[in-house]
């Protein structure tokens, strides 16, 4: 099944994945515009994370099409999808604890990605500048030399966001970026997100409706692998179906 070409950055059409007959995502279609911030909400088990897994190639779809800038992603390998310009942050911070913050960012720098490229990779001015620039942005410039293990939970989340930023992806996918953060960390993260979401499309999975209202251009509510509602944060909040299954009365 192949979808037609569009102007959207991401066009998901008829996407279905079934695990032993259970359809975690069921005939899902949605479109993300250039520079749009899309938030996906929904109750536990709605298939939010699965959708991100499908887009970044971690899970193979059973049916349907995912087009990123009119390029079909469903047949591509994970690293090819990344190189095409899709970045993914995982729910729990995925960083390299045995390496320093600097090395974490350096590894994510998009150069020398082949075996021999990695052997020949040199820390030149370009790499240093970019790492410092990103470290500044994610509030970690003082901690470049510490082992990533030693960071706090919130700092680890920022580091992973930084590792994505250094690749400058056109589509950034964040899975609950503020989960488990303190109030002040949450505020800093919201500010960080506002800054980094310029000039790129972002898909965020989030539960905190206040936070959602703050950042979202458009909200998609998932329920049992299907779209329950889609629209601005206010529209979605007022939708009786959404209140019924997700927000509660």
């Amino acid at each position, binding site marked *: 099944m192949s979808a037609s070409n569009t102007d959207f950055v991401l066009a998901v059409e008829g996407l279905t994945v079934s695990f032993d007959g259970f359809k975690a995502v069921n005939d899902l279609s949605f479109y993300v515009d250039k520079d749009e911030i899309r938030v996906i909400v929904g109750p536990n088990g709605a298939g939010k994370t699965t959708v991100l897994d499908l887009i970044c190639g*971690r899970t193979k779809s059973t049916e349907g099409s995912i087009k990123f800038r009119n390029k079909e992603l469903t047949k591509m390998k994970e*690293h090819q999808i990344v190189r095409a310009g899709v970045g993914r942050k995982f729910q729990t911070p*995925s960083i390299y604890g045995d390496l320093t913050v600097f090395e974490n960012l350096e*590894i994510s720098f998009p150069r020398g990605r082949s075996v021999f490229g990695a052997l020949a990779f040199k*820390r030149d001015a370009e790499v240093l500048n970019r790492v410092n620039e990103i470290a500044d942005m994610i509030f970690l410039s003082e901690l470049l030399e510490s082992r990533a293990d030693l960071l706090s939970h919130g700092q680890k989340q920022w580091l992973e966001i930084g*590792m994505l930023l250094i690749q400058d992806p056109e589509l950034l996918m964040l899975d609950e970026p503020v989960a488990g953060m303190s109030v002040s960390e949450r505020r800093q993260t919201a500010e960080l997100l506002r800054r980094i979401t310029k000039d790129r499309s972002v898909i965020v999975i989030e539960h905190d409706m206040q936070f959602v209202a703050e950042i979202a251009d458009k909200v998609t509510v998932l329920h049992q692998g299907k779209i329950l509602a889609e629209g601005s944060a206010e529209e979605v909040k007022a939708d009786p179906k959404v209140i019924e299954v997700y927000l509660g009365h």
Partner: protein
Amino acid sequence: MSYEGLRSLLPKSDLLGFAVLALLLVVVLPLSLDIFRLNLIGKYLTYAFVALGLVLCWGYGGILSLGQGVFFGLGGYAMAMFLKLEASSPENTAIQSTPGIPDFMDWNQLTELPWFWEPFHSLGFTILAIVLVPSIFAYIIGVAMFKRRVGGVYFAIITQAVAAILTILIIGQQGYTGGVNGITDLRTLKGWDIRTDEAKYVFYFLCVFMLFVCLLIAQFVRKSKLGRLLVAMREMEDRVRFSGYDVSNFKIFVFCLGSAFAAIGGAMFTLQVGFMSPTFVGIVPSIEMVIFCAVGGRLSILGAVYGTLVVNWAKTTFSESFPELWLFAMGALFIAVVMAFPNGLAGLYNKYAAPHIEKLLGKVTGKSNNAKATVGTQGVAHERQ
């Protein structure tokens, strides 16, 4: 390579480690041991090549291979085939029913040299084959396993199965491989008698030299971004994959490199010990090699060498007095390493000895070093280890 390049490849603490090891192997041991013992050390060192490869594969990349004996054996057999052909000249084998072929072939009623033995008449081909045949074999295993994301325990078991298969194959195909006895009675290399004390000295130093070549290659890999990627993959493979790397290629590379090291070790073994047999290919020697690596410290390339020397020295001493107890002692040693000091000798050194030595070094070179640090580029300052 520029001076700066050399400095970043071998920072002061590593340089010291390399120098101490070189002093020990090139000066101290040859001067203090008789040729019999030195030859024994040379034999131990051939296992250090394997342990070194395991540091990169297992310690850095998290790929535990329990079949490194396969590659050690392939390298060793390649060398032995060349030497055997030279020892089987028609004059030397005139009493056989088919002169000019290795004696075990004659005993097994073979009447001509099998096709895959033919190229081993050439020393150049043999040297290439020592490195390339095991590397290609490792590449095939690597592609088959890592592209399908087989890893961890499953990979370890499969490598073990490969070791078992190769042993059975070698033993079963007696006419082509010398069977369980292996390839023995090797005499000369290009007409030069390899059984003399002089030859043993030459091979010992050749072995030490090759070991340092491999150590430097390993150090280069460790210090490159590839080394850090291996650590990253060991910890958070998905993150590496989702940073745009094809993880399997890196695993294949490091597995092939480890295999090439093991094969060079195998060739050095054949030269120094004078034969090659399936007892160095199978499961038990493969696991022993992992123990050498673990005792030395699986994250330390120099530790691998010391670990190999210490365990083998213990094995020789212990099994001279209590031969039947050695295997139990070996098992106990492995358990002790895993439970009590998971980073091996290198871990103990870093914890207890390194701080004192650094203090001493700091006193000697502290001043000039501080001056350098301030003018040094940021990149050098970022060099952590």
